[in-house]
């Protein structure tokens, strides 16, 4: 594989429209050799769209791409690969029922012999790349067997195996644990001596740690470009959102936690995971009204099973879940919803919304049978439309109209739709699972404020997160989950990153 080295890559006047939306609006962007360009911006600003254009996946409506000063046209990703450009996509592009080697071979055209797939060559290449960059992967594992962090590594290895020397990374850290993130940043720093990188992230400390220059995108336009070292994360956040961003914290809010018996009490919960293992093994905790209990832990320690059980999506083997005195353990989702439980699920696309339904419909989905939204078996379209218009305004949902399919929104806006629905229902308790994963600073600030407002209104909140900052900022108490049990509960103000990190690793020192 011999490419002409990429000394400069330039996008000129790139414009892309989707029905009702100008996703990229005359964007100019230039990246030089051996440099890391960070691209940041709110959800839906057009970052992914721009990168998909650069990869030849989308065709721009206007504008051109220049490579070393010469205009090129990319009609498919093959053209981009042919010039040594590779991308790690925001959503994993790995076929789950194929092995790591097969996934790499799929893109490595040199392994496509006339009547034979040369998996040996692919495996050899994987080995070379993973040794060279210290990215251990098991070439024979099936992708579905891998953890999220491992899949992220495979994505990177795959892209490098295809010969990429200009690397686009679209939110590569959004699903990684803090340790994994640190490792990746270190690795990218090393790699940037040989390659050029475009790095997309919502986490500004990563941008600071890694990039040489930064571009900020807002509503499809570049609104700022500059050297990273000249600007603080706070500056960048302000430039990105158009206002000062101050993440709220529980200590700064005046509402004191309501003392008293648990509003939501979980006792001795035992639940099986998908593979038949005991995912929750005698787990207990209490959340009082007006309290945020943070649940910290490395993902995969039972968080998902807990959230599903609390919301009637998984049957416990034993144990009880009491909400305001009513037993919910083992009852169906409808009963749980009716009893006043709110839920912000982990996977917003498959659980929180029906992607093909409009925003309007998704906003009433949980209570569509009640008199608010239907009468005599007919939908009350008037109130439903008014509800949607009102929530769109209050939650700043960015969409062409409330009739747009919810699935076509950017991640942050889907999250706002879910949040709007859950909060408008006035729940007694709320289970929020990774509520700000993949969201921009502005959206994160907004969601944090909403959670604190709910707390002040007397809602008991279980906040599941891997972001220690988020947990520490918002929680009255922090419970650390490890292997399906609560290892320890500490008051929020006593917690430090270090102590939580140790607990999350299962170390319980007195």
């Amino acid at each position, binding site marked *: 594989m011999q490419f002409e080295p990429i000394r400069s890559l330039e996008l000129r006047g790139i414009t892309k429209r*989707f029905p009702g939306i100008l996703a990229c609006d005359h964007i100019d962007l230039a990246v030089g050799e051996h440099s890391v360009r960070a691209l940041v911006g709110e959800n839906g600003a057009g970052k992914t769209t721009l990168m998909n254009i650069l*990869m030849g*996946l*989308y065709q721009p409506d206007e504008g051109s791409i220049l490579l070393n000063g010469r205009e090129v046209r990319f009609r*498919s*990703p*093959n053209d981009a*690969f042919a010039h040594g450009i590779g*991308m790690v*996509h925001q*959503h*994993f*592009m*790995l*076929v*789950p*029922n*194929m092995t790591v080697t*097969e*996934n790499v*071979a*799929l*893109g490595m055209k040199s*392994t*496509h*012999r006339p*009547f*034979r*797939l040369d998996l040996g060559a692919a495996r050899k290449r994987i080995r070379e790349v993973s040794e060279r960059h210290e990215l251990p992967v098991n070439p024979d594992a*099936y992708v*579905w067997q891998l953890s999220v962090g491992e899949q992220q590594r495979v994505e990177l290895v795959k892209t490098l195996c*295809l010969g990429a020397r200009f690397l686009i990374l679209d939110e590569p850290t959004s699903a990684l644990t803090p340790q994994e993130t640190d490792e990746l940043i270190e690795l990218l720093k090393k790699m940037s001596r040989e390659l050029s990188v475009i790095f997309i992230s919502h986490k500004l400390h990563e941008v600071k740690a890694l990039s040489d220059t930064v571009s900020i995108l807002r509503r499809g336009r570049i609104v700022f470009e500059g050297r990273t070292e000249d600007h603080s994360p706070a500056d960048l956040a302000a430039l990105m959102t158009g206002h000062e961003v101050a993440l709220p914290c529980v200590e700064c809010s005046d509402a004191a936690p309501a003392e008293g018996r648990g509003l939501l009490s979980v006792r001795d919960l035992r639940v099986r995971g998908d593979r038949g293992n005991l995912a929750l093994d005698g787990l207990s905790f209490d959340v009082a009204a007006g309290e945020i209990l943070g649940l910290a832990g490395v993902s995969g320690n039972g968080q998902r099973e807990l959230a599903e059980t609390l919301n009637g999506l998984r049957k416990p083997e034993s144990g009880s879940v009491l909400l305001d005195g009513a037993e919910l353990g083992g009852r169906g989702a409808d009963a749980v919803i009716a009893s006043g439980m709110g839920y912000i699920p982990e996977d917003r696309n498959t659980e929180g919304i029906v*992607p*093909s339904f409009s925003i309007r419909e998704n906003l009433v989905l949980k209570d569509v049978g009640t008199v608010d939204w239907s009468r005599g078996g007919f939908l009350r379209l008037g109130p439903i439309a008014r509800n949607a218009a009102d929530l769109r305004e209050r939650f700043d949902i960015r969409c062409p109209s409330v009739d747009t*399919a919810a*699935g*076509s929104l950017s991640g942050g806006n889907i999250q706002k739709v879910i949040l709007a629905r859950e909060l408008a229902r006035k729940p007694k308790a709320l289970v929020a699972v990774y509520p700000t994963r993949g969201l921009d600073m502005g959206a994160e600030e907004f969601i944090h404020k909403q959670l604190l407002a709910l707390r002040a209104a007397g809602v008991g909140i279980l906040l599941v997160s891997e972001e220690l900052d988020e947990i520490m900022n918002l929680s009255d108490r922090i419970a650390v989950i490890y292997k399906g049990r609560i290892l320890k509960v500490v008051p929020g103000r006593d917690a430090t990153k270090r102590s939580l990190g140790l607990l999350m690793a299962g170390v319980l020192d007195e």
Partner: protein
Amino acid sequence: MNAGSFILNILILGVPFSVALLLAGLGETINQRSGVFNLGCEGIMAMGAFLAFLPPYFLAKTPLAPSANLIGILLAVAAGALLGLLFALVVVTFRAPQGIAGIGLQMLGWGTAGTLFRRYVGGVTGVTGIPSLPIPGLSRIPILGPILFNHNPLVYLAFLLVPVFWYILFKTPWGLKVRAVGTYPRAADSLGIPVARVRYQALALGGAMAGLAGAYLSLAQAKMFADDLIAGRGFIAVALVYFGRWNPVGIMGGALLFSLAQSLQLSIQVAGIDFPYEFAVMLPYALVIVVLALVRKARMVGPAELGKPFDREQRV
């Protein structure tokens, strides 16, 4: 008749019965692995059966008679491939719902074949068909010989195609692409695999196999053509693909199971065993339903995007 020869008879009959299902099922496996299920399989088989029947019927008294069967088979295969491409045009390019389009194709093939048959042939007419070709030596092995090595060439071909299709699916670049576009087309697309083209190719191959399966029915199994010759075998083939978990070896198992049940019920009738024949006829079909209901959910095996059209710029 003693029990031994009763069972031997069931086996001897069952093997050739399985061939039409096996051929069509192998083709449908490729279709479904690429993410498209073709319910029109039955219709393609009807067209294949009809077209394959024509040359031996019309050329019987001409010098071309010796190669008439071969011409018929080629005609059926070509027509099957074309119908597969037609189906691809409808469901891949125009993104029509696959279930409805498949039923349409089934009716198109079935109706066209039936109408043309009544118009130009009419009545029940037989053809000589494809003679059997005992394999020298092997066919004289006791028990195994008559079960496995005393059939017409298409039977051997069908069983040889099982490892061939397995190899294609799991060991060739094309098979890899087929599996990728059926499971996660967006990922395949992001690697520069032309999703639509691969699906067209898969549907053409699947159609050709269904055409061949039809030709087998009219030329080798029934040695005649009739409106209802296919008798739901196309739909059974589709069901067998689920049963066999999108794996050629599994398809073969399913096809054999079904056809052994079929030959069992025939043998029951022929032997004059006192058993209501309506129930005997139901047996294989009931078996398919029961088995399908019992098959464990195939997580992480089959094509996850089965039935869904792909559009690069569409998010939902």
